[in-house]
């Protein structure tokens, strides 16, 4: 069975600084998909970024980028120029089937932004 591990229950960063959230996963599959979701206090999960395992290039979305290390099964999220609105729970997730996404989630990292 696939597992997703987030070893940092809480992180904090000064506003405008850069922070990296860690995620490792375990799978025997060679083709899969990885995601970072954000859950603000409104509780509605929002997709931040998505990475296809067959792509060597790391995904980026504005201030958000990932460091995908397939051999190490590592998938970290880097947030640049942190803003107060980035404060949230961040969940790393794995999916084998894209479309009909049965996601396996990590336990989450609570990110605090210090003004």
């Amino acid at each position, binding site marked *: 069975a696939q597992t*997703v591990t987030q070893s940092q229950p809480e992180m904090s960063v000064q506003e405008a600084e850069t922070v990296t959230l860690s995620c490792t996963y375990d799978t025997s599959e060679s083709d899969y998909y990885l995601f970072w979701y954000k859950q603000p206090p409104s*509780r*509605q999960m929002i997709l931040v970024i998505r990475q296809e395992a067959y792509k060597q290039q790391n995904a980026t979305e504005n201030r958000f980028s990932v460091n995908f290390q397939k051999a190490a099964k590592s998938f970290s999220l880097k947030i640049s120029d942190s803003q107060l609105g980035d404060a949230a729970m961040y969940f790393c997730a794995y999916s084998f089937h894209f479309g*009909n996404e049965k*996601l*396996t*989630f990590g*336990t989450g990292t609570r990110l605090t932004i210090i003004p």
Partner: protein
Amino acid sequence: DVKVTQSSRYLVKRTGEKVFLECVQDMDHENMFWYRQDPGLGLRLIYFSYDVKMKEKGDIPEGYSVSREKKERFSLILESASTNQTSMYLCASQHGREKLFFGSGTQLSVL
């Protein structure tokens, strides 16, 4: 934008009660999901449905059932609520290979 609406934001029930959690999406999505979220455990998939009247068990289906009589509505049913089902329940919908859209969750307390 897609709207996924969960009928209650907070719900308090007694043990042994039959509980219905409702989820409605407004974009004709074929796929719908129910997750439960617990501190330190993340989100875990309870059930999902890829079409009307179609359902598949997720990772933790025990104690739950689902109903999807219409495409826009996916209901989660706790046949006899127990205290260990106190949790946050999140519904999501999806069209094809597009991203998931989540509702705002129902915080269920079973006393």
